């Protein structure tokens, strides 16, 4: 059950949210900036906002970040 006492997070709706579709297009580039130690929010501010609010896109982001971190340099067997 949701914790209704955290209303600020519960009602998060920030201006400038790029939405799901815009983030899907650039999620790989966003991840690469993170892995390079750069701040992806400077390049993709709308997606940075979106990832704070959208649980589905945040899960995709976290999964892709982990996959890229572990396997992006994998070579064909």
């Amino acid at each position, binding site marked *: *059950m*949701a914790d*209704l*006492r955290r*209303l*600020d*997070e*519960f*009602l*998060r*709706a*920030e201006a400038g*949210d790029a*939405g*799901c*579709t815009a983030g*899907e297009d*650039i*999620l*790989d*580039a966003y*991840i*690469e900036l993170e892995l390079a130690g750069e701040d992806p929010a400077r390049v993709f501010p709308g997606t940075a*906002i979106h990832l*704070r*609010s*959208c*649980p*589905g*896109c945040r*899960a*995709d982001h976290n*999964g*892709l970040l982990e*996959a*890229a971190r572990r*396997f*992006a*340099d*994998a070579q064909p067997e």
Partner: protein
Amino acid sequence: MGAEFDDLAQQAANDALINVLARLDDFRGLSRFTTWAYKFVMFEVSGKVARHIWRGQSPSREGLAFEQLPDLLAPQPGDRIEQREQLKALAVAIGELTDRQRQVFVAIALNEVPIDVLAVQLGTNRNAIYKNLFDARRNLRASMAAAGHPVPEEDAA
């Protein structure tokens, strides 16, 4: 369960490969090719897991009905008076949402239904559901502010 997920993983890999091959011309080199390709795997996994969860749910299972909200929002021991008033205002504001916004907000924010599962359930996509959720949150904030219980903007850092 293991075999089911092995099958789901295989299907996701196959469908992702088809997607990657179909979109090769779209690759602009903004990331490593593997990261770009894994993105389609991730999208396939998200969609397939959501459909798997949705199919596994009992047909009789329903989300939290709005009528149950007063219980959910009932003041708890230890709540401050301000919090109690805020929760009352939230319950009223939820009642003022459109039917669709209320349906989405109650499912995701209160029942914690995964957004992709709800999208499958309602026959739409994640982006459309997110728009409903975003509008619901904005309307709730506005209603609560108008009722004298503004919710401060969160620290985005």
